[in-house]
């Protein structure tokens, strides 16, 4: 910290804390100490305060303790001559700043409940999103876990003009980074500049307009803090672990654009605690020695066309920009971008026409690598708002290529097309739906570019399993229909192949340690009948991933000798878990919730918990935010069982798993399920019905209670008794 920076940061902290105190006093007068406060949809209270200090701010009156803490760690101003050491005090001041800003924002929610949109998207008249709720946290956080998003740039202020803002944003997007925006400079705000430049903002495009004031920075820092608690299983109050976790695993940095005020310095000093460096476009003093951050702490006066590259280097982040020879930008950050009805240039599928996608294998001499063929009218041949049928046929050839890989490669088409800016893709197989926006068409995007990008990305990501790939695109109705016929026959075969697999007949399972970047001791073992608990990886995915990257996070696990068939325990699996968890976990049972159940990471879609009185289990999914019969909300449950430990009575699992044959089969399986939220029951209704029929209790779905029946065991038990739920007559679940 240079003296100038430390002095400014400490001054800024004084100002912000004074403001927080004033606003708190006014709020106390207006609402009183018992008024509930907090950010919407989160179980982490005010997350920075909760994560760092363990204090739960639930009521206005709780803020008094936090303000007292702010004042106790707020250092005196830095003396001009012979100053006392100021780095540590400045970092402390930065932390106090975040505490105070969380209070300010929480009071803001109280004073103007509709100030923020409180959702993933901006609305017609409001571009400020406010704090991310826990659903967004999980959905987006998982991208930090699997590496899809390496981190985020916290942008403060504004670029000199909207054009530069759009360029910086796009560069960040192309490096897969999230952009978290707050604050203003010269009356301008980065998020507003992006809107002005016609850039789509919101969580979907990773351009997150948190809030108009500097204090909205806490939404970014709170997100990072929650990531450590949610995905890393770090306990609230274990500040050191939370901060180091972020330094090592969340590759974020601050980009102050414009004059750096005392308040900005205070926020920057705070962010350095998390290991997030500052890269400024103004000539502020630099802090180059390393230590708190991985490399430099403050780098300044960086030109706008170099600022993203420099920031990534200073943070120590390796990102690869995919240079795609297509006329629009390309990368995961554009995946969530939408093409609205009024912006459509060309539409295929989606009920208006037939669209089909098909990956198939050919002989080596039948495929000319890189060949892209468009048969029928192209974008340039139609007018704005046109509809065309479309068949995308991707033909692979190579020694390693096998039929099992086809569906996996086919599933890539969805997100790869979405990676292209101005292209929206929904669905798969013969219910695919594609929209190409006006902006993309204007830039010269044509159908052959779909082939070009598929060829390039397939080679980049899956090059190990094939040698050649060519793409054919058909837009003539009869041809599309002909392809669809062929494809449908193949889809049928595939479905039969996958659903026919059983754990018993499979000798090799797969591991998934993708989450170890976030939950270091967690090891998922994925069998055909137990998908990964995040819902993102099934056995086939893992198999393919393992073939594609033999040293990656998905490894084949030889089952070995059976230790217990009913519980689902094998010697080979145990040995693998022991090694992959670095000796922390030496065994678990794949099919049990009661007896040494599998470990759970923070990414799980659902948590099952034993309800002793009902002699069964309840399941709660992440989207359900209310109380449950086990006495804990989802987030509390996930915190309790997450973090890579095996907790008898609790287990994390995917939504899909509920209707798989091996779901807690050692403890009685699906028949044990006595409660789940209505929304979950509706989501899995078809499969649940089928599974119920399979076990011979076709009306099981109606016997499962939900929140409309009750949210305590006492409330639901009479219902279960009335319905004659099978769990009640099973062996005692607790022995």
């Amino acid at each position, binding site marked *: 910290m240079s003296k100038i920076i430390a002095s400014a940061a400490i001054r800024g902290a004084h100002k912000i804390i004074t403001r927080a105190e004033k606003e708190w006093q006014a709020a106390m007068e207006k609402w009183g100490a018992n008024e509930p406060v907090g950010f919407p949809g989160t179980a982490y209270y005010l997350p920075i305060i909760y994560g760092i200090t363990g204090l739960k701010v639930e009521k206005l009156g709780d803020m008094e303790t936090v303000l007292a803490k702010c004042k106790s760690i707020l250092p005196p101003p830095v003396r001009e001559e012979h100053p*006392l*050491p100021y780095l540590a005090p400045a970092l402390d001041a930065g932390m106090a700043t975040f505490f105070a800003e969380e209070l300010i924002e929480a009071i803001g929610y109280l004073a103007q409940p509709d100030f923020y949109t409180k959702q993933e998207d901006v609305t017609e008249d409001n571009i400020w999103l406010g704090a991310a709720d826990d659903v967004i946290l999980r959905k987006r956080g998982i991208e930090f876990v699997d590496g899809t998003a390496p981190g985020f740039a916290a942008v403060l202020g504004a670029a000199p003009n909207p054009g530069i803002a759009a360029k910086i944003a796009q560069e960040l997007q192309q490096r897969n980074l999230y952009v978290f925006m707050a604050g203003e400079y010269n009356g301008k705000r980065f998020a507003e500049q992006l809107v002005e430049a016609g850039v789509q903002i919101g969580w979907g495009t990773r351009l997150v307009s948190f809030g108009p004031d500097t204090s909205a920075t806490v939404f970014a820092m709170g997100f990072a803090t929650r990531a450590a608690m949610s995905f*890393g299983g770090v306990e609230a109050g274990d500040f050191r672990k939370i901060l180091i976790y972020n330094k090592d695993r969340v590759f974020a940095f601050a980009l102050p654009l414009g004059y750096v005020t005392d308040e900005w310095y205070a926020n920057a000093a705070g962010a350095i605690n998390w290991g997030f460096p500052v890269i400024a476009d103004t000539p502020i003093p630099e802090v180059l020695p390393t230590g708190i951050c991985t490399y430099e702490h403050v780098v300044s006066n960086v030109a706008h066309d170099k600022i993203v590259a420099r920031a990534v280097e200073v943070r120590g982040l390796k990102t690869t920009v995919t240079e795609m020879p297509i006329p629009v930008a390309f990368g995961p950050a554009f995946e969530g971008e939408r093409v609205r009805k009024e912006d459509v240039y060309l539409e295929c599928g989606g009920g208006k026409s037939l669209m089909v996608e098909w990956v198939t294998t050919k002989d080596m001499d039948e495929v000319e690598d890189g060949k892209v063929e468009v048969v029928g009218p192209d974008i340039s041949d139609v007018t704005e708002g046109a509809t065309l049928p479309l068949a995308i046929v991707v033909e692979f050839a190579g020694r390693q290529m096998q039929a099992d890989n086809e569906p996996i490669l086919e599933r890539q088409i969805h997100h790869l097309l979405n990676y292209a800016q101005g292209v929206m893709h929904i669905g798969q197989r013969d219910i695919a739906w594609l929209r190409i926006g006006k902006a993309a068409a204007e830039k010269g995007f044509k159908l052959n570019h779909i082939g070009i990008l598929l060829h390039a990305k397939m080679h980049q990501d899956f090059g190990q399993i094939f040698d050649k790939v060519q793409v054919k695109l058909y837009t003539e109705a009869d041809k599309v229909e002909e392809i669809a016929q062929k494809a449908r026959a193949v889809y049928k075969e595939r479905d039969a192949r996958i659903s026919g697999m059983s754990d018993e007949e499979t000798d090799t399972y797969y591991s998934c340690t993708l989450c170890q970047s976030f939950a*270091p001791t967690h090891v998922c073992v994925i069998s055909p009948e137990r998908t990964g608990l995040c819902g993102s990886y099934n056995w086939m995915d893992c198999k393919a991933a393992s073939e594609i990257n033999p040293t990656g996070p998905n490894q084949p696990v030889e089952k070995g000798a059976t230790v217990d068939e009913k519980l689902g325990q094998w010697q080979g699996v145990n040995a693998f878990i022991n090694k992959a968890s670095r000796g922390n976990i030496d065994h678990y049972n794949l099919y049990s919730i009661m007896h040494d159940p599998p470990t759970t990471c923070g990414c799980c879609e659902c948590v099952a918990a034993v309800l002793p009185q009902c002699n069964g289990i309840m399941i709660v999914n992440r989207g359900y935010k209310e109380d449950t019969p086990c006495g804990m909300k989802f987030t509390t449950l996930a915190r309790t069982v997450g973090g890579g430990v095996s907790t008898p009575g609790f287990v994390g699992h995917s939504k899909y798993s509920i209707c798989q044959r091996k779901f807690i089969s050692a403890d009685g399986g699906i028949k044990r399920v006595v409660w789940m939220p209505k929304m979950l029951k509706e989501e899995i209704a078809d499969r649940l019905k089928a599974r119920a029929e399979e076990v011979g209790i076709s009306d099981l779905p109606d016997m499962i209670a939900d929140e409309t029946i009750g949210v305590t065991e006492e409330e639901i038990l009479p219902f279960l008794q009335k319905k004659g739920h099978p769990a009640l007559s099973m062996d005692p679940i607790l022995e």
Partner: protein
Amino acid sequence: MAKAKGRSIDIATIKMLEKAEKEKVYTAFDRAEVIQPCPVGMVGSCCKHCSMGPCRVSLPAGGMETPEERRFRIGVCGATAETIAARNFARMIAAGAAAHSDHGRRVAEAFLAVAKSEAAGYEIKDEQKLLQLALELGIDIGERTNQEIAVDVGEILMKEFGRQEGELLFLKRAPLKRQELWRKLGVAPRGIDREVVEIMHRTHMGTDQDYQDLIKQGSRTALSDGWGGSMIATDLQDVLFGTPAPVLGQINLGVLKEDEVNLIVHGHEPQLAEMLAVVSQDPEMIEYAKSKGAKGINLAGMCCTANEVLMRHGVPIAGNFLQQELAIVTGALEAIVVDVQCIMQGLADVAQCYHTKVITTDPRAKIEGATHMDFDDLNAVETAKAIVKAAIDNFPNRGKNIHIPTEKADLIAGFSHETINYLLGGLYRASYRPLNDNIINGRIRGVAGVVGCNNPRVKHDDVHVAMVKELIKHDVLVIQTGCSAMACAKAGLMVPEAAQYAGEGLASVCETVGIPPVLHMGACVDNSRILIAATAMVKDGGLGDDISDLPVAGAAPEWMSEKAISIGQYFVASGVFTVFGVNWPTLGSKEVTDFLFKDFEEAYGGKWAFEPDPIRAAHLMIEHIDKKRKALGIDKARERVLYDMEMRRELAGA
């Protein structure tokens, strides 16, 4: 004038030497010219351990001798020059270790008295450190009061002095590899007193007559000082009086005030100084001073006790070891209150020329011609008041020949291990990481501990300041204690602005953290803090797995006391390359000297060196630092590692 200028680089000192000369007052500077060092004793070649001697076994002039001459250059009992040099050296260690450790014992006694509520006026100031100590020592905390816990802590540590077997508890603080090495070499101390007594025994006529074995016991004894007595003193002082944190202070004779009662506390143990700091602020005492015509009471420190009260109370320092008599020469000093160690008997003589009262306070250290007023921990407030009152009563006796030099410098002091840990990362990210990181990336070349005394055989303060400036110019961060720290503080090296004298890399780190390039870590007993800091560097990682792997070095360029030898020996035995100036007490035996200067490195990873020239000595240290950097593979610039997802996954658990 010219004569005074040749004796010191410190203007205040020069001015007072001139005044003394004019007033025909003789100081250590004069006496050092009158009495030349005994050439036989200086090199460790005089044995007076029995009445068959004393035997002088010094080398003939020119240093050349035939094998035959050499055979007969032995004592009456047959003791060789090697045995005699080693015995003398070992006895210096014993005396030094005894001084530090007896200091530690007195602190432990006072600590226990406070814990048992027997010493009114003191209280336990650092609860955090008390609890940490208790945890480390395996003491039950539960719902017990601080005082109950402190009784256990005090009793356990008190037993360390009289421990007879096993090994000292604090050895476990050292890096594991170092502990194992000590055990392997047989130098892990069994107790504190026992090792000192054993040296006295072994060096008795006709006992241990193998120089290597004698030096080995020297190592064991020195370790019982550094990792024993001194460390206990530092830790208990911190708990009792507060762990030092950065504070702005002032130093040099200019801190004395013309219109106030000037009272200097001089010596080493902080109990007395602590209480004087409190009592001298007592409104009742200030009123009393006013009644005698003074505007107030001005307490200042001198020598190590000054370091203690500066770090904890911001009490100004009047000067270092060689300035003790000169403070009296100002004519404005009402009393110089002393306890133990480094108190020149000459004070009493100089005081006769002025009105100054020399007040001894410790039953172990009385001086003929001085006033003795027993300072009693159990009745601290009253006895301290009596001492202050005596000083006030002396104010009206001031003569007319008053001259207080205007020189004084600002300094930032108080860099304890705990504070450094905090300063490098704040409350939430405290660690040694930034220090290690910047050593690894080369901004900081290494760390040097420059410590020790003043010695009128060399130009006062000059050697310290020249060496330290040379080191920081080459990006070596300097940590200091004792009178050496004071020399550099007077030269203005202990304020952040002194980064201008540092190399670019070190300066950038100083600017980042807001620290001076030269850090004041406390009194000479606080060299134990340097051991802890070095261990913290090892434990933070990236710089090897033992203290001897670190790019660090030590020096005492103006040393004079036996404590310095003990400190040096425990640093060397802990793996630190250590250079001494002035003269070297084993030069009478090439074998013993080679053993310490060369063979030691193989066994301990650290060794001694002797180099009176400060610049050359600094470069010996820098060479050693560079050697260690090379061994660690950090001598070359490293490429920036950019992390991708896979590498992040490989990072060990958060």
